[in-house]
């Protein structure tokens, strides 16, 4: 008996042409949508200019970090080039009380949450383990383990549920949790476990998958035979696919899913269909496994260009806006460079911190011993 594996993925007509929520075409044309338009009714021209600024500045942070890595200032950097819209759209849909659990690539979400870009660099420079306080901006630490954060998010969401912080109708109180991950992570056990826990517990969590088509060098067809968003149905919650390069559509669908969570209606999966324009990380060389033609195809769908086209065509901006943004962008990059070089090396005793709320006496004794040893040196000069 022969098994036609291809048939299983194309037998269902829905699998061939997945529905894609799109409100702004790559050419910058606004596409009307009966339902999702209502979710972004309140978005003014000023807001769209703000989203454009988010996209441009977060991309600048990203490209500056890549350059810093190439200059030996960072050990590594995971570029998010091409994924700005998915991150800004979802990031701007969050309310202050919501919690975000990122991978190591959510630089634009961090930007939306108000995390200093310099703090992201500390991790990649190797001078700390992630130095921002997750409680300050409700933006949790970068997770390097693939998919592990989906379980953290689900657990946190179940905690929110037990705090009774959902379905009260109070917009200041009802809380949603968003878990970011990529297409490669969907093959991880952790992610599938998170789906199950979230589903059966009706946890207020949004699974936001940025399908950037590549898990390092593994293409999407090695991860799944059905569109990823359809996996949600099997676990028992809704899933949809959105144009991940369309910031308005990402904003709209994220608002919907987050509100579902806050209202106590349980989890949902968003598959933001996008493309990783850069390498997996600065250590990777994508020219070895993918075609330049694919890159060109996606370059035409750039998330920033379409917003720019929309703004210009609608006469919603003047040249001064772009000039000011350029200047702001340059200043941001310059400050980032300076701040990166000035990041202090960690104190040797910092290794004793941040693990225990109440450190056990043995650990304190070790810390003191270490401090005493360090103090026995006459000088501690030298370039650090």
């Amino acid at each position, binding site marked *: 008996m022969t098994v036609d594996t291809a048939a299983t993925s194309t037998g269902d007509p829905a699998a061939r042409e997945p529905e894609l929520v799109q409100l702004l075409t790559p050419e910058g044309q606004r596409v009307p949508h009966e339902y999702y338009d209502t979710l972004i009714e309140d978005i003014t021209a000023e807001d769209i200019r703000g989203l454009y600024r988010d996209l441009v500045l977060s991309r600048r942070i990203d490209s*500056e970090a890549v*350059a810093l*890595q*190439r*200059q*030996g*200032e960072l*050990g*590594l950097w995971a570029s998010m080039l091409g994924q700005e819209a998915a991150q800004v759209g979802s990031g701007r849909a969050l309310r202050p009380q919501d919690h975000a659990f990122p991978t190591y690539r959510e630089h634009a979400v961090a930007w939306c949450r108000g995390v200093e870009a310099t703090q992201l660099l500390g991790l990649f420079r*190797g001078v700390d383990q992630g130095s921002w306080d997750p409680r300050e901006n409700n933006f949790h630490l970068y997770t390097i383990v693939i998919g592990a954060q989906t379980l953290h998010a689900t657990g946190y969401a179940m905690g929110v549920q037990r705090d009774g912080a959902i379905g009260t109708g109070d917009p200041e109180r009802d809380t949603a949790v968003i878990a970011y991950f990529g297409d490669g992570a969907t093959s991880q056990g952790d992610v599938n476990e998170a789906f199950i826990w979230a589903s059966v517990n009706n946890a207020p969590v949004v699974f936001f998958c940025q399908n950037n088509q590549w898990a390092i060098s593994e293409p999407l067809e090695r991860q799944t035979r059905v569109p990823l968003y359809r996996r949600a149905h099997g676990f028992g919650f809704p899933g949809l696919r959105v144009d991940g390069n369309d910031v308005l559509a990402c904003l709209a669908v994220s608002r919907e899913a987050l509100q579902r969570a806050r209202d106590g209606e349980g989890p949902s999966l968003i598959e933001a269909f996008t493309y990783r324009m850069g390498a997996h990380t*600065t*250590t*990777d*060389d994508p*020219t*070895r496994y993918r075609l330049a033609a694919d890159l060109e195809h996606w370059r035409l769908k750039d998330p920033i260009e379409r917003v720019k086209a929309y703004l210009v065509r609608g006469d919603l901006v003047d040249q001064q806006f772009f000039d000011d943004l350029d200047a702001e962008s340059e200043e941001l990059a310059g400050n980032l*460079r300076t701040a990166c070089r000035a990041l202090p090396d960690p104190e040797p005793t910092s290794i004793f911190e941040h693990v225990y709320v109440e450190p056990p006496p043995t650990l304190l004794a070790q810390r003191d011993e270490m401090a*005493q040893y360090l*103090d*026995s*040196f*006459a*000088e*501690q000069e*030298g*370039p650090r």
Partner: protein
Amino acid sequence: MSVSQFNLPDVGEGLTEAEIVSWKVQPGDQVKVNDVVVEIETAKSLVELPCPFAGVVESLLVDEGATVPVGTPIISVRTGSGAPAGGSPDATAESPTTAESPADAAAATAAESTTDPGGPAADLVPPPESTDDDAPAENGRQPVLVGYGPRTSSLKRRTRKSPTAPGVPETPSNGTPTTPAVAPGPAGSAPATTPGERPRVLAKPPVRKLAKDLGVDITTVAPTGQGGVVTRDDIHAAAKAREDGARPQTEAQAGDLGWQGLPREERIAIRSVRRKTAEAMVRSAFTAPHVTEFLTVDVTRTMKLAERLRGTREFRDVKLTPLAFVARAICIAVPRTPEVNARWDDDAGEIVLQRYVNLGIAAATPRGLVVPNIKDAQMLSLREIASAIGELAATAREGKTPPGDMMGGTFSITNVGVFGVDTGTPILNPGEAAILAFGTVRQQPWVHKGRVKPRWVTTLGLSFDHRLVDGEQGSRFLADVGALLEDPGNAIAWS
């Protein structure tokens, strides 16, 4: 105004070195922050490096093609408002880095990184006229597997506080550093020794071993390290001095024969392609028992056919070389002796007869020998094979052969004839059963129809893996290829 140096970074998590492929700027060029200045090749990929400073390029410190350790300064840039647009000739003349060849300067700085930056070794390389805080002596780091390498400043032991007050917290103001047991002595001052006694030499064990290996009496070496320690460089210097002392006569004799000015021995790092070639050849030579046979054939008819075909419309756009005929002859001859196109599968205990020919063509490229193969060459016409060979060679010369093109070969040709030699005993490309060496085609006296005539003659050399192929099959195959080249008409008879 100051001069900043850009040290080669580790761009790929734990790389220790990289090759400078091409410079995108020249001394005197104006650069901005993040302008691409150089392309480097690491074990992982080709990477463009953006410049961390704005200013005028002062000098390129490493030659193209050189492989240097991570941390080596590769370019110096005159930064700040005072940077002259074109680079002042006076200033550059005084700069030590431009006074020497770039490679020397880089080597000197790299060597310096292993010694105390403040030590006398620095005297060998005069400090740059003006440098900022990132001067290489302070910042030169050793390559390690992960990270940026240890800082040279931490190589010396930190001074402990006075032993009279161990662990007693002191305020920085009265925490006077006390002199350690061995005072850091001035430059080159070896500890005093009593006459008659064997002098006490301060050196680390690896340095002592180095001295022994190089046959240098370590007690005679003048130490330059801090505290009178003999360093690795001291040993090398002593060994070199000894050699130089023994050399002048030879140098004089060498005179104008092209030997002058060259080092007595030159060491070339074994890198990527060279190393891979070496590994493949050793593996092949010691796995497959090689047999080589030779056949000299009259290929005049093939040459005439090639001449005629070149004039036809079909072959107008391709470069039709004798190599294409050899490739085609192999594809026609293989089905008659499939063993020469087989594979030895040791794990399965089987011989795999391959009903396709992925024909490898050994190509000499600037980076070394590569053997890309033409997939399913048996399906290609003479014209297609000729054009495939042309493309393959061009891609290989540009260094752009994708890894896939070098895998899965079933049979290879090495075209030694292009170097003007008659034949060789080729070593098998690992995993393949046979390889054909195609010698130069030249006119030689040959007995043709009972008379000695000038004819186009070549020599074929076939090496085969005796595990798979016996003398009978190998000889038959070689004779078949020879017959096809001697009379291309055989191709019609056989295929």
